[in-house]
């Protein structure tokens, strides 16, 4: 008990914990010179920009789409759009966040298309489908997935996946995440909590038959 209570205070003292991680909001502009050069048509400068932010952009696409080939295509498309719209980009704002927002919009478009297609498929095959109860095999897969945090994150809805990826994997501040997602910064902590709570429940050990018995 004492240990558990102490852990609450640890949350306040030890970053990172429950979003208490403090990051400097000071905006550095290492990309500005490259952006200005790229605007003048300097492809080498743009290539340098791509190299500097390719990993987070591709990483977010992979987490949102759960498909590496598709993620690569979408990330490439995001960079292409960034290049074509450099004139509309405010060089005082972080370049990586701008490209991340473009990539995120493209991913969400694909996810929306996917869900529409799935809905159509389900409607078409409604009669042929078995009951909604999970089979023994599905249960075994779910249990297997619980063992891996990465896999568990992959089963969350897209909005949970993106907030977790941006905060924990890419170590972004809530302000930066809000900028990418186009939401109020104050909502990010609540989103993070809800996503984490879903994960916690998912990762909890499967109840034993004795525990399940009334």
């Amino acid at each position, binding site marked *: *008990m004492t240990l*558990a*209570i102490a*852990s*609450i205070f*640890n*949350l*306040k003292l030890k970053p990172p*914990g*429950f*979003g*208490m991680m403090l990051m400097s909001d000071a905006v550095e502009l290492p990309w500005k010179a490259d952006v200005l050069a790229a*605007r003048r*048509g300097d*492809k080498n400068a*743009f*290539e340098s920009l*791509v*190299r500097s932010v*390719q*990993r*987070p952009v*591709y*990483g*977010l696409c992979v987490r949102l789409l759960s498909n*590496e080939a598709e993620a*690569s295509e979408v*990330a*490439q*498309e995001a*960079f*292409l*759009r*960034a*290049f*074509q*719209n*450099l*004139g*509309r980009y405010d060089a005082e704002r972080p370049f990586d966040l701008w490209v991340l927002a*473009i990539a995120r*919009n493209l991913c969400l*478009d694909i996810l929306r298309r996917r869900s529409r297609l799935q809905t159509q498929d389900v409607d078409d095959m409604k009669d042929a489908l078995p009951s909604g109860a999970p089979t023994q095999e599905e249960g075994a897969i779910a249990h297997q997935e619980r063992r891996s*945090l*990465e896999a568990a*994150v992959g089963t969350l809805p897209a909005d949970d996946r993106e907030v*977790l*990826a941006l905060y*924990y*994997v*890419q*170590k972004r501040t809530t302000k930066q995440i809000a900028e990418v997602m186009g939401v109020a910064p104050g909502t990010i*902590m*609540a989103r993070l*909590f*809800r996503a*984490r*709570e879903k*994960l*916690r429940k998912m990762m909890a050990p499967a109840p034993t038959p004795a525990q399940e018995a009334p």
Partner: protein
Amino acid sequence: MTRTPCPDLEVLFAEVAEGRGPAFDHGKTCPACAAVLEEHRELEKDLFKLQDPFPPANFVPQVMAKVASAPVSASVELKTGFAILGTALALAFVILVARGATAGQLGISVAHWAVEVRAILVGLLNGVAMAWKTAAVPVAAILAALLALSLVGLKKLAGTDVPAKV
């Protein structure tokens, strides 16, 4: 001692982040809430260890190939066009200034041109006034049609494919 009921977890976490509030006080003494907080803390530790995957080795070349084959944006084309025009005009001006006699000739030509243009404009205005007095409705219709055609033409010229969401 009566224990307060466990607060909603979202409220608890919000108050833990703030470091004050009744839910926060409750969390300090409730083993169940403390256990949940601890589980979240452990989960966070693991989540912070996750890494972004590396993009494929040919990712950047593929992006640059797409960039190379993409049409140049309208703004870049316009800027380049104006830069060329500006440079040409500046050069022409420098050459004219360098030849003093030619510059003088130019001044006289411009003055002549200004006078002639004024005469032409006065004539045109008189003609329009006369046409308006004799056939106002057809003139207005023709002018409106010309304006509409020009606008349609301009719209077609200015129309470029800009991605809807950037």
